[in-house]
Structure formats: structure tokens, C-alpha cells
């Protein structure tokens, strides 16, 4: 059972107070997009053993969505951050690099 700190209200949340929302930083492809782009957006997901970026909602709390960077194997949490960004902020990436040098996730590193 994970504990993630909600970056909006600052509460260290029990996993049972959260709703998991799958992979983070997807780009929406709507009408006019190619079949390949739409398929990628709707269905294709990373399934890494290691560094991962996820969406969570503090559903039993302030109701806000946020992002979490964590390791799916060791369950180490590198940071939680705003949902309103298209990619992880620098400090979170630096925190990952400090622990997992050479990490890669999609086109991030």
C-alpha cells in the first residue's frame, strides 16, 4: 500500500484514499488524427520495470489529480507534482537521475 504526498493539499495519502489513473503525460489525438496516432493515444502504454510516471487523484481528499514519479520495482517515490504540466519538472527528473542514473522513459531521460 503506497503512500503518496498530494502536492495540492500536502497530505500524505494512504493508497486507499487515492484513485489510480494510469500513465501520465499522454498527448490527446482527436478528430483528424491518423489511425496510428489515435491507437497510440488510446491504447499503447508503457509497462516499465523501473522508473514510471503516473496519474493519481486524491479522490477521498481535495479531489485533485496529480502526477507521481516512482519506481515500479522498488516502489521508491521520486516525487509528486502538478497535473497541469506536459512533462515532469526539472527537480523531479534530477531526483530520478540521482537515484537511477541513465534512466529512460519514452523519450525522456
Amino acid at each position, binding site marked *: *500500500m*503506497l*503512500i503518496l504526498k498530494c502536492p495540492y493539499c500536502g497530505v500524505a495519502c*494512504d493508497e486507499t484514499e487515492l*484513485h489510480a*489513473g494510469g500513465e501520465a503525460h499522454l498527448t*490527446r*489525438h*482527436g*478528430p*483528424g*488524427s491518423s*489511425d496510428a496516432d*489515435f491507437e497510440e493515444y*488510446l491504447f499503447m502504454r508503457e509497462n516499465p520495470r523501473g522508473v514510471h510516471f503516473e*496519474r493519481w*487523484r486524491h*479522490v477521498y481528499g481535495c*479531489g*485533485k*489529480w496529480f502526477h507521481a514519479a516512482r*519506481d515500479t520495482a*522498488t*516502489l*521508491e*517515490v521520486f516525487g509528486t507534482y502538478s*497535473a*497541469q504540466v506536459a512533462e515532469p519538472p526539472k527537480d523531479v527528473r534530477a531526483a530520478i537521475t540521482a*537515484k537511477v542514473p541513465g534512466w529512460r522513459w519514452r523519450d525522456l531521460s
Partner: protein
Amino acid sequence: MSFRLDTGGRFIDRSKPRSFTFNGKAMRGFEGDTLASALLGQGQMLVGRSFKYHRPRGIVASGSEEPNALMNLGRDKTFEPNARATTTELFDGLEAESQNHWPSLEFDIGELNAKLSRFLPAGFYYKMFLWPRSFWKHVYEPIIRKSAGLGRAPRHRDADHYEHFNATVDVLVVGGGIAGLQAAKAAGEAGAEVLLIEQGAHWGGRAPVDGAVIDGVPAAEWVEATVAALGAMPNVAIRARTMGAGVYDHGYALAYERLTDHAPDPSLPRHRLWRIRAGRIVTATGAIERPLSFAGNDLPGVMLASAVRDYVTNYAVAPGKCVVVVTNNDDGYRTALTVQEAGLEVVVLDARSEANGPLAEQARAAGITVRVGRGIESVKGKGKVEKVWVCDQTRDGSNPDPIKADCVAMAGGWSPVVHLWSHCGGKLSWQEDGAFFRPDPERAPNGADGAAFVLAAGAANGELETAAVLTDAYVAGARAAAEAGATGTAGAAATADVELSEPMLPVWNMPERASYALRSKAWLDYQNDVKVTDVELAAREGFESVEHTKRYTTLGMATDQGKLSNINGLAVLAGALDQEIPKVGTTTFRPPYHPISMGAIAGEARGALFQPVRQTPMYDWHDANGAHWEPVGHWRRPYAYVKPGEDVHAAVKREVLATRNSLGLLDASTLGKLVVKGPDAGKFMDMMYTNMMSTLPVGKCRYGLMCSENGFLSDDGVVARMDDDTWLCHTTTGGADRIHAHMEEWLQTEWWDWKVYVANVTEQYAQVAVVGPNARKVLEKLGGMDVSKEALPFMQWAEGAIGQFSARVFRISFSGELSYEIAVPASQGRAFWDALLEAGSEFGVTPYGTEALHIMRAEKGFIMIGDETDGTVIPQDLGLNWAISKKKEDFLGKRAQERDHMTDPLRWKLVGLETLDGSVLPDGSYAVGEGVNDNGQRVVQGRVTSTYFSPTLERGIAMGLVELGPDRMGEVIAFNRVDGTFVQAKIVDPVVFDPEGEKQNV
């Protein structure tokens, strides 16, 4: 035979006799006894029959590792199977019975299985019962079911209650032996908030029995002083009878507190499950002694050496008069000394070729016969130990000599209890001297901070000598506190004299070259009846992975999870495979450490609290007026109101007809109500709904559809435009929370720059649908706002007063009748309902439930989310193209609905279905086509989605999805019934009642 000694017993109070029954026989023990010690005190060595061979079995251990002494406890509403006698504290009136015997414990027919044992090897289920196939169901399985198994399942509802407790601490210390006490003390002194838990009723673990001296005083005195010191520390909480059951991610741990098992009190919670969040967890869970594998090692009277001295020292119970201690290490001599001091005869057989350590010398000095280089060829006796045949340990067991004995104490070395360390991924390393797996600190379970959050301490960490235990525990406690953020300094560690000992000798077979005949009577797993030869067979048959061997032989799969058998079994497997033990590895340790009650897992969630039941403001009225409840999500809605003398079908029919003919009332409070407001709300509404909502004029209502991004229909409902920048969205009953979350998700994670706020006001309002030809009349009678056709036409809404209630009135209809849906503040919902009933009495006002609602909507061909949709249906399938905007560039689901499969003309589409004989089509029935598919199944061409008896039309009505359905009007197709027959139905328009809408638009 075992008996009670005249003196001694640390735990028992001889002034407080306790009476209990075993298999109906009255017996006596003392306050402080366990059921096991009380049974032994009464000479009851035979306590059960084994799982497979029904062999007679006795008590082996003194703690939770006990494999044999499983009991049915209590009766009826307090009955519990599979309770261990060794962890059951005795109380007056306890009722116990042994398990797995028929017809009686003493005479058991299943014992024949033992005679047939060479026909019942490992994996015999898989091999023997394959042919003939029909025999499995009718012959083999019923017989096996009757003869195998442990306790019987309870037949009554559990009278006890249970609860949870959430606690957050800096440091959790599991285990109240000297290691746990020392670790908790160090952590507490350093300033950490500490919770120390101990599974048993007593603190101090083995040290007082083993004769340890700590800080210059006997261990028991040190334990008492330390417990008192901990109790006085405000930042330390200590709790006995609380077992560490499991360790999980991020410092989460479960502990199982048994509050009243030792003193039943139905007014108190029986068990409490602790859900603990700890910064660091110290596992000071001790070690468990290993049995030795010799022939006949399962006879009643063969016990662990440590258990023998526990019973003598703690309970003043002698397991026998003549004890043979068989050992491969120095610790066994402690038992020899203890039993000799208690006045029993004792002989030591030491498998090692020499034994000259201080304990062995002490034993010799006390006059105890010590025979080195010896092992046990076999133990013989009828249902109990009678004779021990002694042999040369290094040979094959030939030419043994007999000793008369009634108890054998096995000292096979110690295995650290690594379960909690391993639950969350902690790895182990093999320690050659001692021959055990111990926690590998380099591969500990990691927490959220990336650092190890479990620290093993003392014997659980592989430290078996008192002095080393204390130092190790002190370090673990202090480190845990510091890592959890405590800044203080721990006081000094307790000290003990170094105990010198000679190395132990790993002994996996006794004697070393035991013949097959001997090995086939040497038990590894008592509870599941697995022998040395079973594991060897598995290895020969190719089950080389320890996980495969475990499943094939069932070694370690019983309720004791292999606490005694694990290492011995691994060693035998390694030997058979000619591999090193660490190469073979261990099976996976899974929580709980020891079985916990189902009640504790459920906690408060049973009976009325099993699930939250959401109640509308009119709930009590419904309940008092015959509501036949239907769960809708967590809501309870009346399915129908059943009157005396009426069945539920008659009630539904009455409700439909009364509504169609005069006046019905529906409690619609559960419908979702979401307010969407802001400068960008119109844009947002157009993305959420398939149709155009931004153009809806203020004061008007519009039916709308919502799809997932995958194109599938997800919810529907009527939207009302409140003002320039505000919309009110009605959702389905089950959809309110889901659609609210859906809207928030898109606003927060995709369009976060759009200025839109959403609020869920579902429960602020009680909503009543006033339905039927007399709906307007009843509202006019109550007075207030103008509800005439002119002032409030169909699909408009208005705010005002109905009678004395301030209300929002929506002229929308889900029944095809003249209908007003009226929202009033929830606090006045019941009063409003009562006012409508009173005013409506002259029209025969009839409250109706969800079934009447469903029938009336189906008569009108209105779809229902969850009936016509199932997560694979798009609006186009349901003929709802009119509600899909072609002007909008984008809405959720639009791109998905452009995919090939979504535009395929052969998709099944919505039609009405009318049976030729007027019967009601079976729910879920399929329309069959010609021929069979590639899997040999009948081809299908459609299915029923809604089907009812229509009281209005007095025949069955239905809707369904049918291939090319709308193009096949009038065609008759066949639908299957469960009994294999078919019913013919004609494809018709889904709207079978008032197709022109003349009744609702008046």
C-alpha cells in the same frame, strides 16, 4: 505418558483450576495453561489424525508453529475450526474437539490409508484418478472429500464482532522477546514513537526458559524491569496477544490482536486488525526449532526439544517419564538438563562425533548419559512412543539397540523466523554454520524513500546467543529510530555473558544413509503428511524447482505454512538434486504469518455496515410502505411498493396502470445533478456531450449523451441551461459520482486553462417525478407557480414555489406521460413527498418504483444505460444519430466513432421485438442465425437488451440489438430459451406506446 509435575510452572496459577472438555470429556487445567499444556497435563498425548494417512498425532511444539494439534473450538455461533491448541489460552468452559477423525479419535477407519501409503505417494491425485473420467465426479472426489481435510466449516452466523484500528508510528517492533524489548527500548530512548507487539500473552520469549542471564540478573527479572520501563515511556506503546501478520509496501503492516479469545465476552470485540503505518519496522520474531527426519518421527510423544522444556518450565507439564533427547547441537542439552532437574529420566543422543562444549559437560556432570555419534534408527510404539532404536548416525541404521522411552525431544537446530522480512521482498542468505537462511541486509525491502524499511533483529536476524541478540537488537532499534527521524540517543545496550558453544552438525537424514524403508516413514511436513521419500520422488520426476516441488508434494502448503518443514524439505530436495541448499532457494513467504480470522479481516463491515446504503430523504416512507428494495450502486431504490395481499408483479402492474391512467409519483432523488459553470462552460459541455449543448437556450432542457474517449456510450440525461454561463446536467443514478469525476479529470488534466467549475449537487435536492394525466392538476391544487402548458411547456424548466416549497420544476418525461420532475431542498424532501401524497389522494396517487419506471420507458422505446448499453455500444447502434452533432469539430468519442469497426453497417442495431405468442422474451436471450461459427457454436444475429410484460398492452414487449435490424422491420426471428427451445419474435419499431408523443406534450 505426559503428566503434571507437582511443582513449578512459570505461567500457571495452581490456585485457579479451570475446567474444559476435549471430545466431550471433562478435563482440568490451570489459569495460565494453553489448551496444549492442559491436555498434556491430563495425559492426553493423542490430539488428532493426520491429513492424508489418518495417522495418530500428538503435540509437537509449544507455539504457533504447531502442525498437529488443530482443534474445533466452541459450538454453534462461536464455533471455530483449525485453532491451534498451543496458541489457545485455557479458560473455564472451553470446548475443544479433535479434527479429521471418523468415527472416533482413538479408532479411525481412515488409518487404513497408512497401510496403503505406498499406493498414495506424492502427486497421487494427479496420477491415480485420471481414469475412467466419470469416476472422478462420482467415486473418487466424494471419497476423498470425506476422508481428507481439517476442521469443518462453521454452519452458523458468527456471534462475535471484530474491528480495525489504524495507527501510524515511527517504529513498529514485532516480537516481545528480549530482542524486541531491547530494540523497542533503544528506539524509545532515542525519542521515536514506538509500538511493540507480541503474539503471545507473555513477554520475554525463550530467554527465561533457556536460562539466560542479562545485566547480571536472570532473564525473567530483566524482562519484567524492561517491560515496566517501556510502559513508563510516553512515546512507547506495548501490546501483548498481538501478532505481526504481514508487512506490505511503504511501511504498511497488519497486526492481529486477540482481545477476548482467552476470556470470551460477547460484548467486546473478539479480534482487532491493526493497520499500521510505520516509518521503520523491526522484526524481532525469534527463531523456530527444526525437527529431525528419522523413521517414526510423527508418533505422539515426539516433540521439539525446546517445546519439551517450555512445557516443563512454563507449565510444569512433563511430556513423559523417560525422555530421549536427540540433538545435532549444544542447545539440545538445555532440554536434557531441564527434564533431569524436573526428576525425569533422560538420555542424550548427539549426532556429532564429539560433544565437549560447556552445556554437554554440564549434562555429563549432572549424571546424564550422553551418547555421541548416535542417531535414531526408528521410534516404535502403538499410537505413542514406546521404544527408541538407537544407531550409528553415519551409517544405514543396521544393528540398532533399543531404549525404552515415552518421549523423544528433537533438537535439529534453529531457523530464524524470516517471514515478515520476506513478505515485502526482503531476500535471504544462507548461513553455513547454523544451516539456516537469514535476512540479507543488502537486499532488504525498500520503502518510499528508497531505503530499507525492515530491519531484522536478534534470533530473527540469525543471532542465536543472548549477548549477540541484545547487541543486534539494540543496534536495530537505535538505527530504526534515527532513520524514522528521531534525534535522541539510546541508552546503553543490555549485556549478557558470552555463551560458548560448539558448532552444530546439519542432519537432514537420520541415520545419514537411512534405507528407503526408513526414509518412507520419516515425516517432513506433519500437517500435510509429506515424507522424505515424497520429496525425493518429486525430484526424480523432474520437479526441480522448489516452487514446483512444493505444489506437487504439498510440502509447506498447510495452515502452518511449513514453519517446521521448510528447511528440512529444502535440504532433502537439494540432496536429491545434488545441489547446494542456497541454490535450491526457498519458496515465497506470504502473509499472514499465522492464520487470522475472517472476522478480523472484515472488521466492522458486516451486517448493516457491510456496505454503505445511500438513502434518499424519503427512504423511511418507502420502507414503511412496502418497498421491495433494489440496489442501484450504493443507493437503495424501491423496485415496487408491495401492498398486503399483493405480490411484487401485481404491484408493478398496478403502479404502471395507475400512472398511465391518473397519477404516479417517483422518488427521483438519486439522479445525478452536476452544475457546470464558467466562461468556457459551453465549450466544455460541447466536448462532454455528443450533441450541441452550448446553443441550448436559458430555461430549456435537452436530452444528451456522453461517450468515453473510446466512443462507447457512457451516460445520458437531461441538461438544463440555468443562465448564461451555467448548465445543470442530470446523470443516471449510478453515474453521478462517475461523471463528476470524468468532468474533473478532463478539466484538471487536459483543458486546465479552460475556466470551468463543476459541482456535484446531487444530494442537495430531493427530486420527485409527478407523472400522469393528472400531474398538472395535483400541482395546481398545491398552488404556487404557473405550471400550465403555456407557462411551462414540454422540455422547459422554471424556478418558483409549489405549495409552500421552493422548487425547480423540469417538464421532462421518461414515461411518455405528462410529467414534472420537481427538485426541492433535501431537508424538505419528505415533507414535499407527503404533501404530494395528500393532495394527490383524490386522484388515487400511486408511488411507483424502478420496475414501473423501466416498463414505461421501454414502452416508449427509451434506452437505459446499462440495459441497452454494456460498454461496447455506441449511440449510432441505438438509433440516436439525431443526438450526435455533425457540426462540432470535436467531442469525446468522436474520433473513436470514425473507426472502421464503428462504422460497419453490420453492427447490431436497436429494434423493438414482439413475440408472436405475446409471451415475454427471456432476459439476455440471443437471436439465432443459420449454421455454426468456427468454434462450433450456433451463429447469432442479435440479443435482447430489455424485456418486460407491458400492463398497458397486456403482452410482452422487448428491445434488442439485431444485425441490420432497422432494415428488417416485420421479419420474424428466433430467440433461444434456456431449455433449448426457441421463441419467434417480429422485428418492430421500439416505440410501442403513443408514438406521436401526444400524452407527454400536453
